[in-house]
């Protein structure tokens, strides 16, 4: 296995790094410390630059107009794109574009025309509605939203929670129990329009992060045409499950990016700050924190790149993706915590991004499946077979 970046990868990473440091970071000086939106003119200007670089719509498959960059390189880019104040949850404020919901690439042509293509053009956006008040880590058992066939339609009743973008999206992918007797084989995936009667955004769910809140949704006799079933009826669980594994790799990359930047800040500060007549960098307590940071960062990086490499080669990567998510989210939290400690009082202020990362990276140990569930996934794979 070649652990060196190729010349092309090095060039791409350097380009993204320069873009983040020269174009994105300076804009944050005028934004609220918890902000997540650029001024529209700045956003449009940066989007134009990204398009000129050929990186727009990174995760869009080449067949749909994406830039055809392999997953390992995209993971390296994601690590760079997170290296600014808002980078953990809004890498580069979205100016690299998005691919929308990955499940839509498996949709039929009519659904692609109505949802996928407008999303790729930036005309529509969608949310992913899986988690319910009854749970999110075990969707096969936790889903209580019901879908009952009525003529050519399905009628949905139930609620979803912790849904990002539920209040701003034009449509959503929603999972509901269509056959109560069949467990994971009784779940159907639907595309619902936010304008459908019976769709309600019940509340904003405030969390540790001040922006990118979640929402709670309710479906009251929400009538969905049969043409809006994504995939086949009762086979929605596989659609949900596939997304969960794939999403863990960029999720891990974001944690690494923030950790890299926090470590860079910690080293700079340790080399500058003088206490009791000498620089912090001369103190063994500080040196060990810096070293432990580096061990955490390098471990996370290689585990995550290994997961991306297996996924890119179409090999089973569920264990690797779970390991990457687990290691990077936990290590990233430790790195930010140590870096904040090295900065002392300044680390806690909104003058620096550390306090925002400290709050936001804590969510990463729970979002996209908590650490305990990642361990459960790996244990299943390592021990063989499924167990309870």
């Amino acid at each position: 296995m070649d652990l060196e970046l190729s010349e092309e990868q090095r060039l791409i990473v350097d380009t993204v790094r320069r873009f983040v440091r020269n174009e994105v970071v300076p804009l944050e000086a005028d934004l609220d410390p918890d902000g997540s939106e650029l001024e529209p003119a700045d956003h449009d200007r940066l989007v134009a630059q990204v398009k000129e670089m050929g990186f727009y719509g990174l995760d869009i498959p080449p067949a749909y107009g994406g830039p055809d960059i392999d997953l390992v390189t995209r993971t390296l880019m994601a690590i760079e794109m997170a290296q600014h104040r808002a980078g953990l949850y809004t890498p580069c404020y979205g100016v690299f574009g998005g691919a929308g919901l990955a499940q839509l690439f498996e949709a039929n042509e009519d659904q692609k025309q109505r949802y996928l293509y407008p999303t790729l053009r930036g005309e529509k956006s969608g949310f992913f509605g899986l988690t319910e008040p009854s749970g999110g880590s075990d969707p096969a058992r936790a889903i209580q939203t019901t879908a009952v066939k009525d003529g050519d339609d399905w009628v949905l009743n139930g609620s979803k929670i912790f849904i990002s973008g539920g209040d701003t999206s034009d449509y959503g992918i929603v999972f509901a129990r269509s056959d109560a007797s069949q467990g994971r084989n009784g779940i159907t995936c639907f595309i619902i329009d936010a304008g459908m009667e019976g769709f309600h955004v019940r509340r904003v769910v405030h969390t540790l992060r001040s922006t990118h809140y979640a929402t709670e949704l309710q479906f009251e006799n929400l009538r969905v045409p049969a043409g809006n079933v994504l995939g086949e009826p009762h086979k929605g669980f596989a659609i949900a499950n596939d997304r969960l594994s794939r999403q863990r790799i960029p999720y891990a990359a974001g944690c690494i990016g923030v950790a890299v930047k926090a470590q860079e800040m910690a080293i700079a500060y340790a080399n500058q700050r003088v206490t009791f007549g000498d620089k912090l960098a001369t103190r063994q307590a500080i040196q060990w924190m810096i070293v432990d940071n580096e061990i955490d960062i390098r471990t996370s990086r290689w585990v995550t790149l290994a997961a991306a490499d297996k996924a890119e080669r179409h090999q089973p990567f569920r264990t690797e993706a779970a390991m990457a998510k687990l290691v990077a989210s936990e290590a990233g939290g430790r790195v930010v915590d140590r870096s904040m400690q090295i900065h002392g009082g300044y680390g806690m202020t909104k003058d620096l991004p550390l306090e925002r990362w400290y709050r936001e990276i804590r969510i990463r140990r729970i979002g996209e499946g908590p650490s305990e569930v990642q361990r459960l996934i790996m244990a299943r794979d390592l021990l063989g077979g499924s167990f309870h």
Partner: protein
Amino acid sequence: MYQLGDAAGEVLYIGYAGGRELFGLRSALERHRDLAPTGGTAGVTLFRYEVNMQYQSRYRELLMLHVADNGALPVGNLNDHPAHLGRIG
């Protein structure tokens, strides 16, 4: 978080004093006072506030609730609101 209202209790503006305000809520309110003679939030007689660490999401929530209850943004927020404001209800 703060809201400004007129004598009848109608909310004219919803805002927050974020991490860049030099003197927090005081700075934010002084800016409204200075702008009032040129329009802005003229007519304000009432004021209320709450302390909230999640001021960005609470700000959006209050705007969404106002739209849900009144059908439109407060008059002072018509040209001063997040680019992508959601809906609630």
